[in-house]
């Protein structure tokens, strides 16, 4: 606990400002004409921004950026299975739209 006195709130506020700008970006996307016409374009743009936001929260607020190597052991299998879960259902979307 020797490091307790060094704790600063400043980086937290910087991450907060970045999160607010990115949230505003997601919101604005729904008003942009070209993207509004396409669900797929909106989906890709909005999910890209959301991934950036989630990365900020996970890395800085959940302090994963500063954790040891155990994080890879725990999170890589989870991330892999999570992606497989979504992709496994994709053929159904494709065949239904044929």
């Amino acid at each position, binding site marked *: 606990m020797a*490091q307790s006195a060094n*704790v600063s709130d400043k980086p937290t506020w910087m991450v*907060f400002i970045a999160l607010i700008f990115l949230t505003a970006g997601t919101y604005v996307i729904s008003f942009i004409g070209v993207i509004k016409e396409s669900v797929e374009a909106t989906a890709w743009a909005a999910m890209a921004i959301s991934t950036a936001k989630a990365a900020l929260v996970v890395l800085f607020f959940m302090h994963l950026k500063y954790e040891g190597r155990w994080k890879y052991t725990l999170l890589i299998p989870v991330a892999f*299975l999570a992606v497989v879960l979504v992709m496994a259902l994709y053929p159904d979307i494709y065949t239904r739209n044929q």
Partner: protein
Amino acid sequence: MDTAVAHASPAAAEGSKHKLSAGKLGIWLFLGTEIMFFMGLVAVYINERFGAEAWPSNYIQGFDPQEDPYVLNNKHFGAANTFVLILSSVLVVLAHNAVLRGELKRMRVLLVLVLLLGCVFMGIKGVEYEHKIHFGIYPGGEGAERMGAIVAEEKGLDPAKVNDGNMFASTYFLVTGCHALHVIGGIIWLLAIVLLSFRSSFGKQSHYMVEYFGLYWHFVDVVWIFLFPLIYIMQAV
């Protein structure tokens, strides 16, 4: 319990790198199962949403969405709830920083604010649910059936064969309902920490309570960060 890692503070965190307490490992393992749980729900939603032939959007002619803009998923509500959860996440980090500095009173005030923001989130969600239920938009509801039929007819499909109104209602309530239950769970957990913080034994050494709660609350925030575009933004197109 010397595993304190200052939030968003690289220099402070460096000293405790590679140290992993049993409590933190337990929380992360739990969050691992939670990731799988929500990914399953999101996978089903994506499958139904993008595989649907006539998915209801916010603009259904004849369903009076202009008259009552809250009938379908309202992106203004979604954005407001996103802001509420992000702000609450920031306050949890500040509360953890405060307890690490031994500022218990500040920590308590910040946690109470988080508690209130959690209630605001649930209040906004309650208004959304109330509007949907009022118009019969719930699984098996008359409104959901009618809404699906209108969209199917607009696309030249037979409403008796293609009606995605019920699936829209089912996936909406399933995904947001599970998330809302997690928010309620977080509120109860936080209330317990606030009450425990009044005990004389609560001090800087108890920072892990706030840290573990914070990990859970940030996860709930991350889930919502993805639900907002999936359910509200894509719904508006």
